[in-house]
């Protein structure tokens, strides 16, 4: 019986790929470093490199049948995509409109995207949470979260 040929598994390549990018960026950034400062990182880079090669050999290029479950599939990425993009937008607008307002907009929109049909319910929960967090974090704990100044009123 012929042994199965090894094939490239794209999903399995993500973590080693990110590691490679990080490693290259790290080495470029530290190219002018003192030798004594880089002794430990070079030991770690060597260990990471050896294990990286083993992972690539055994998992990134694997027998297609045995590694089928680890294949990279783009279809179920819609919901995780929302979970990445929505918080990024939330953080991007926060310095401009303040913590309270951005939270009040972020929550009901995300509730809606994840299946919360009733706007009234979404807004009510968002309002309660925003008020509780604003009071707890900004008023009581004095956190320096971004705030919006409207005239004499600071939100």
């Amino acid at each position: 019986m012929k042994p199965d040929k090894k094939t490239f598994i794209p999903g399995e390549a993500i973590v080693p790929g990110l590691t490679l990018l990080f490693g290259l960026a790290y080495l470029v950034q530290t190219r002018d470093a003192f030798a004594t400062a880089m002794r430990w990182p070079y030991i770690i880079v060597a260990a990471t490199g050896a294990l990286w090669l083993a992972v690539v050999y055994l998992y990134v290029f694997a027998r297609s049948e045995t590694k089928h479950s680890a294949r990279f599939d783009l279809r179920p990425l819609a919901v995780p995509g929302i979970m990445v993009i929505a918080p990024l937008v939330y953080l991007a607008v926060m310095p401009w409109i303040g913590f309270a307002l951005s939270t009040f907009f972020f929550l009901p929109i995300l509730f809606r995207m994840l299946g919360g049909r009733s706007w009234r319910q979404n807004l009510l929960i968002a309002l309660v949470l925003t008020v509780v967090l604003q009071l707890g974090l900004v008023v009581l704990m004095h956190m320096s979260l971004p705030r919006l100044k409207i005239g004499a009123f600071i939100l």
Partner: protein
Amino acid sequence: MEIANVDVIAAGFELLMQPEHLMWLPIGMLIGLIIGAIPGFNDTNFLAMALPFTVYMGPINAVVFMMACFCASQAAGSLPAILLNIPGTPSNAATCLEGFKMTRKGRAGFALGVSVAASTVGGILSALIALVLTPVVGIYALNFGPAELFMMALFGMTAVGSLTGKSLLKGLFSSVLGLFVACVGTEFQEGYTRASFGFYELYEGFPLIPVLLGVFGFSELFSLAGEQSLVAEGVKRVTGFGPIMDGIRAAFKQKINMLRSGLIGILVGLIPGTGAAIATWISYGQAKQWSRHPEKFGTGYIEGLVASDACNNGVPGGALIPTLTLGIPGSGTTLVVMAALMINGITPGPSFFAEHAVEAYGILLSLVIANVFLLPIGILISRLASNVTAVPNKFLVPIIALFCLVGAFAWRQMMFDMYLVIIFGVFGALLVRYGYSVPAFLLGLLLGPLAESNFYWAVQIGGIDSFKRPIALVIFCATIGVLLLPLVINKLLRRGKPGVELNQ
């Protein structure tokens, strides 16, 4: 201050009994019971989210709160396992096998009673053993120099890496990846900033809290967001205290089973990187092997349920021993507990009992008291928990996301840390998706600076001969041993559940 002394224990008890410390015990237990009852969101996720706020609580309050939360969540994880066939925490998977079958037979109250009693006994046993054993380990740990500490860090990372990844290779790769990420930031010999990538926020390296929140808390949301609800409809509610009390009485008749399972929990908890999920399957397998009716296992049999629940609540005490005395967390949760101590200015490790003996006993005693209170509180919560598990994901997921982001900001008050949560959240989800070990990655990140500085000092003091000292050599042999341990554990697991492998 002497350690292992009655006066010190009394001082620890007195410290714990102060209202400002004691009040965190019921608060932690209540939250732990709620968190443990929410499937898919375990105590480690929650405690990672709560970590930034512990800066405001102080070290003792933070650890008392966290240990109470840890114990209670281990016990409460059985609630959805029994009622809904959904393990509240990974360690409750074995509980599903027997508990849900009992629920299907209309004996949900009885099963909940058995679970509460077994969890209480396992927890008390584990806490008492930790109280006696931890200081002894602490005394020997005082002999540790830089070479031994480096070897301990190596041992911890190897143990966690080899036992928590989908494969040995991926687990070890996760550990060195954590060490590599820990190489970012200003080093201590020359004061050179190694690869801050142009961000001044990274001058001190990747901050622990946002990374923890990302890989533990935020990464969990990707799977939760894809599901409609955590809770199945049509589950029969437990009515009255009668069946619960019957279950408690029946569980107390299983004395040998409870003691054996509790001890297995402690022993497995002692080994860094193993955790309750592995311990419960080993315990379940042992109970089946020793039972007079092994054929009844898997059909809603009390012996299987007792074995699983007594064991999973025995793990916290065991996991606390290496965390406090050696600075090597025995599980993901104790890793967060250790982080809480560190950000509050206390470094767990060999000198912990010498420098903070009273506080250390306070922490250990809080574990004993939390487990004593578990029985009455557990009975009450058993009746109420099913309501808590009914929170729909469409509301739960955005709220958790918000708390992760705000939690990251709370520590250093930097927006940059909130972005790190998202980045490491995605990275953590990828690690989990492709079978890498998140605890190993985090332990590498946490122990990286410790390993580097001790390696440097060991080489400076005695050169390579430093690593030939007896304790260092013994730890090195133990490191080789844990590389072989997955084979032994897989053999034990197969006795409990045919076809099951470590980390499945």
